[in-house]
């Protein structure tokens, strides 16, 4: 075939596609099996949560914001609570902070184990997928017995936590961690030694530290490229001040190192939870907080399982926030997919996408789609008319 005559052959992935459990649209232009161009379009799961927070009171918002992400629900509520507490000038008692961190780390473990399964599934390694999810189940049971729910734990309150950790529960957690630690060691040896699996991960999607800095990667994805970036270390919050975390780094930056970094973070989480449980601060678990929050604005940063989670909170002195802005880690990491995808095999694309641990409903905060229009502000009527015209024009 003559090159000039060759049509662009585009593989669309999403918004409905078996590789993605959430909606997002990717277009990969391929030449044979090699990807030559890629584009991302997000915004299918935009739910208007930030606007909705402005018509709910401070307490109700916690539960709404917790539902931004089903996997890292606790960390969203934590970021919000820390921010609101900072605005109100109250701080949660040390025991509450410790419990918050324990739940956050348990959540990180469950998120990373789930990611391990999903990434293995993308590579067609369903056995690893089934086993890692089976073992994750033990942790879900712990979270359920501890907080009362398997997802959306609702452990936080503004000014503290809902529950205490009893001695019995402490033992349950420690027992679960023991089995999980042993299994994690096993998984680490699998992902670093299985020949067939390594052929799908080693040297694929390599991101150099400089590239990671330039794209602005966060979380384990950045740490796999050797970028030392972790909010728990850089700006410790809650109980991380008293119980410091060791930074887990890897320098290669390919898919294998993302596996290694995430599994090694599991070990760090196990260690941290044990340490906190051994040195639990005594005392109250809630602090009194006014229904109306003082006027002012603040930012709150925490380390979600996927990377830095950022909250901007502004209060006008009433019982409802004036503005809340959320930036989730997937937003920062998503830019790496079209960059890294170019030049790779089509078969590696789902792996590269899964490698950043994407969470689409998290990152769909705002949608801006340029279609040749200038970037002015549209009135509601114009937007509505545009919608009507757009769908009329469809075949």
């Amino acid at each position, binding site marked *: 075939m003559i090159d000039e005559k060759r049509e662009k052959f585009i593989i669309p992935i999403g918004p409905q596609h078996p590789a993605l459990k959430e909606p997002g649209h990717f277009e990969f232009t391929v030449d044979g*099996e090699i990807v030559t161009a890629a584009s991302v379009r997000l915004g299918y799961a935009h739910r208007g949560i930030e606007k909705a927070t402005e018509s709910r009171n401070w307490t109700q918002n916690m539960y709404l914001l917790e539902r931004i992400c089903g996997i890292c629900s606790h960390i969203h509520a934590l970021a919000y609570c820390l921010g609101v507490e900072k605005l109100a000038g109250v701080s949660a008692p040390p025991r509450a902070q410790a419990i918050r961190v324990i739940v956050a780390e348990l959540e990180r473990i469950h998120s990373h184990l789930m990611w391990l399964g999903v990434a293995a599934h993308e590579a067609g390694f369903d056995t690893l997928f089934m086993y890692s999810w089976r073992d994750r189940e033990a942790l879900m049971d712990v979270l359920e017995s501890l907080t009362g729910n398997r997802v959306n734990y609702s452990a936080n309150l503004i000014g503290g936590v809902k529950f205490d950790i009893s001695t019995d529960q402490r033992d349950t957690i420690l027992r679960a961690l023991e089995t999980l630690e042993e299994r994690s060691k096993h998984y680490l040896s699998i992902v670093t030694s299985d020949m067939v699996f390594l*052929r799908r991960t080693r040297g694929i999607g390599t991101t150099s530290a400089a590239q990671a800095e330039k794209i602005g990667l966060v979380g384990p994805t950045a740490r796999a490229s050797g970028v030392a970036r972790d909010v728990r270390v850089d700006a410790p919050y809650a109980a991380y001040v008293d119980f410091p975390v060791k930074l887990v780094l890897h320098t290669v930056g390919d898919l294998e190192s993302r596996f290694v970094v995430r599994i090694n973070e599991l070990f760090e989480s196990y260690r941290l939870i044990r340490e906190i449980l051994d040195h639990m601060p005594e005392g109250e678990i809630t602090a009194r907080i006014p229904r109306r929050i003082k006027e002012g604005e603040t930012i709150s940063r925490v380390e979600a399982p996927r990377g830095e989670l950022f909250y901007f909170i502004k209060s006008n002195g009433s019982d409802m926030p004036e503005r809340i802005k959320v930036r989730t880690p997937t937003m920062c990491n998503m830019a790496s997919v079209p960059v890294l995808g170019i030049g790779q095999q089509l*078969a590696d694309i789902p792996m590269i996408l899964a490698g950043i641990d994407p969470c689409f409903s998290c990152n769909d905060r705002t949608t801006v789609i340029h279609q040749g229009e200038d970037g002015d502000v549209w009135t509601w009527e114009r937007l509505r008319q545009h919608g009507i015209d757009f769908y009329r024009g469809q075949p």
Partner: protein
Amino acid sequence: MSEILAILVFPGGLFLLAGGMMYEWADRKLIARLQNRVGPRWFQPLADVVKLLVKEEVIPSGVSTFLFVVLPIVALAGALTSALYVPLAGLAPTFSFSGDLIVALYLLSLLTLCTGLAGSNTTDSFSLVGATRTLTQLFSYEAPFLVALLGPAIAAGSWQISEVNAYAQSHWMAFLQPVGFVVALIGLLGKLELPPFDSPEAETEIVAGAMTEYSGRGLALFYLGRKVELMVGLTLVASFYLGGLNNPLEFVLKTLVLLLGMSVLQSLMARLRIDQVVGLWWRYGALLVLGQWLVLMLIGGFTS
């Protein structure tokens, strides 16, 4: 009369379809157990087929309708016909003539070929990529698989399946030609597009590959063809390498052992990329089995 019965009921037709579904169930159940899951109940494959047959068949625009309808039928027919030449259920093949091994093998490849054609018939990009991968994979495993099955045939001195089967009863080829056995087993995985050779239908990349546009009856027929091929392929490899098949009990035992081996292999490996599949077959599979062939020829030459 008896021939019509043989084609429609036993060992062709109904028996094959039912047997194919049972083997498919056994495969799924075994993999589920290997992954510490419960797995489907015994009628799941039947339920799948019935459901698909009941559903509407959507013929997409931009395809040749004739090809779209005919290809699944040809694929199933090819798989069913190939069964008439193999010692199904440990009984003598229905039809047998000198050189039927080659015929049976090519009839088995018809399914893959039809899948490839069906994919390239549609305008959908997933189907096209799937079809390319299906055909690429066909060219990579076909030759080594053929040569691996010819090993026992050469040892038996005949290219007639029934004679090789008879010869194998006194010679366990799996021990005499271990390389050929392994290549045949892995070749069967490739032929059936099972993991790790499922890149032509890798759901996380190209949805269902060449089958993406198929629904309803067409898809059911392709699936049935795949199930029948699983049974025929197992029979062929078991009769050649596992000491022949001469009664139903032996048939069931040996094919199930083979199936267990295949399930373990399937559950142990991640999906290979298509370039890795081609590399694997031509760099290792073909060379190994050819090397073994050469050794066999030399030994044969010296002893005769």
